[in-house]
């Protein structure tokens, strides 16, 4: 190695050292690092950190509003703080009543939604497949469809012997219409060529119904079920708040009446979680039964 090379070598080493020192400084102060992390960092990390910060900030604002008893248009003086809600949750989650309420709501949803799906799909297929049935049944659908399930509450109480049955009935009404309409729509869209192909392969009318029409409509049916599930929760909570004895809707409403304001928010969040879980279940069901549409 000749002298000039050695000199060159030392020069680069010095430059490296300088760069290292500078970057450790930036690390120490962290500012440069933070900016990089948040705005030009890896997308997956950003996608996780920013929503988290957003939620934390929201909680802080909420805490601040309730602590200062802010009263600007919205009145926060009676609203429990996030910490209060958290304490209420810890208190309530160990009680049997809370889990019983959840159990009742899920039970009503499961019952009403199952009946709603069976009735809804049957009516929807009949409407799409038979002209005569369509002429007979469609007018009733058109009259009842725009009436929100909540408007049925007084009628339901009069119609059914027990409150329990009327709540399930209202929930059923919430679920059934989206399922009927989406099933009907799916059946209407069945391409005539598919039916002709099946007939030419020796399928009779019944075979065509079960092997062509219903399978073709299944993606639409699952859309109807997802919408129906949302509507069912909506109707269930209305029913429980007005005439229930158990159930998470009743829990939320009762918390208001008993001035346990922390529990109102615990109830609301529980409803949100339950509704997400049931909708997610439908999504999974769809993935399972229609792998061909993915």
């Amino acid at each position, binding site marked *: 190695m000749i002298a000039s090379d050695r000199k060159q070598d030392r020069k680069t080493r010095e430059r490296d050292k300088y760069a290292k020192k500078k970057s450790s400084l930036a690390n120490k102060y962290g500012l440069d690092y933070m900016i990089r992390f948040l705005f030009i960092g890896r997308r997956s990390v950003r996608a996780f950190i920013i929503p988290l910060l957003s939620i934390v900030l929201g909680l802080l604002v909420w805490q601040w509003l309730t602590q200062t008893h802010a009263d600007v248009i919205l009145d926060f003086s009676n609203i429990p703080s996030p910490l209060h809600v958290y304490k209420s949750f810890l208190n309530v989650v160990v009680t049997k009543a809370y889990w019983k309420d959840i159990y009742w709501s899920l039970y009503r949803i499961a019952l009403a939604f199952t009946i709603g799906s069976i009735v809804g799909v049957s009516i929807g297929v009949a409407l799409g497949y038979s002209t005569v049935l369509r002429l007979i049944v469609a007018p009733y659908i058109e009259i009842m469809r725009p009436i929100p399930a909540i408007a049925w509450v007084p009628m339901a109480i009069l119609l059914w012997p027990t409150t329990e049955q009327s709540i399930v009935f209202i929930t059923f009404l919430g679920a059934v219409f989206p399922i009927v309409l989406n099933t009907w729509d799916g059946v209407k869209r069945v*391409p005539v060529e598919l039916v002709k192909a099946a*007939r*030419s*392969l*020796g399928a009779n009318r019944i075979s065509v119904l079960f*092997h062509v029409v219903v399978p073709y409509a299944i993606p639409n049916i699952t859309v109807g079920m997802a919408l129906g599930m949302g509507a069912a929760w909506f109707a269930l909570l209305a029913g429980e708040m007005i005439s229930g004895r158990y159930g998470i809707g009743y829990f939320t409403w009762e918390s208001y009446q008993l001035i346990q304001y922390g529990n109102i928010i615990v109830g609301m969040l529980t409803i949100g979680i339950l509704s997400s879980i049931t909708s997610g279940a439908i999504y999974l069901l769809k993935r399972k039964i*229609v792998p061909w549409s993915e």
Partner: protein
Amino acid sequence: MKDIGHIEIQRVCLGYKSGLDTKTVIQDLSLTLDAGSFTSFIGASGCGKSTLLNAIGGHYKPLSGSIILDGVEITTPGADLGIVFQQHTLFPWKTVKENVRFGPMRRGAGRAAADKLADEYIDLVGLSGYESYYPKMLSGGMQHRAEIARALANKPAVLLMDEPFGALDAQMRASLQDSLSSIWENTHVTIVFVTHDVNEAIRLSQRVVIISRRSGSISAIIETNRDHDEPIEQYMQSRRTQELKKRCLEMLPA
């Protein structure tokens, strides 16, 4: 030679009724299709060739006249009359194998027997290895192959094909035409093939029936008399074939 798949078209009129009006498409058409023959219908679009094919398949009722398959009038679609449509009509929720075995299972074959048949015909159209694919995962040409297998698995007396290769690129089309030729030579099912491509009609069939839009009836029947030992390219380029093509093209606009 097979003795089933003989079609007798007797003075058939086809058309659509809309209210009191009747629009006739096919007028008083008579034609005999021998068992085991390969016939092409060609004509300008709107001449009624597809309608005629659908009527043979039992999907349209003639306004008058009758279409007779082996002595029995055709009134409804059925497993005897296999159809391959221009559009893709594989059931998207069934795999290739499930599609192909659909016909045999409707006719009461057991799962095992239907599976065996399905494998046989999937192999015949060159789709072995794709049994468990959904139609969406196949190319257009492969979907057509599967559709042909599905129609053949029923062992139909007649295979009706409605411009089946219309939407394919030239290479895919040629490969499917070759497959169809060899399938016909192996099975000797009666084939009725609708197309608007003169080359395709001459390449594949024994007889080319030219249907005129103006009269709604047959304007010419041209026999190709292809010698099947002759290589296909040589046949297509021979002077006689060129002559036939010219005659077809002259007849077409009428």
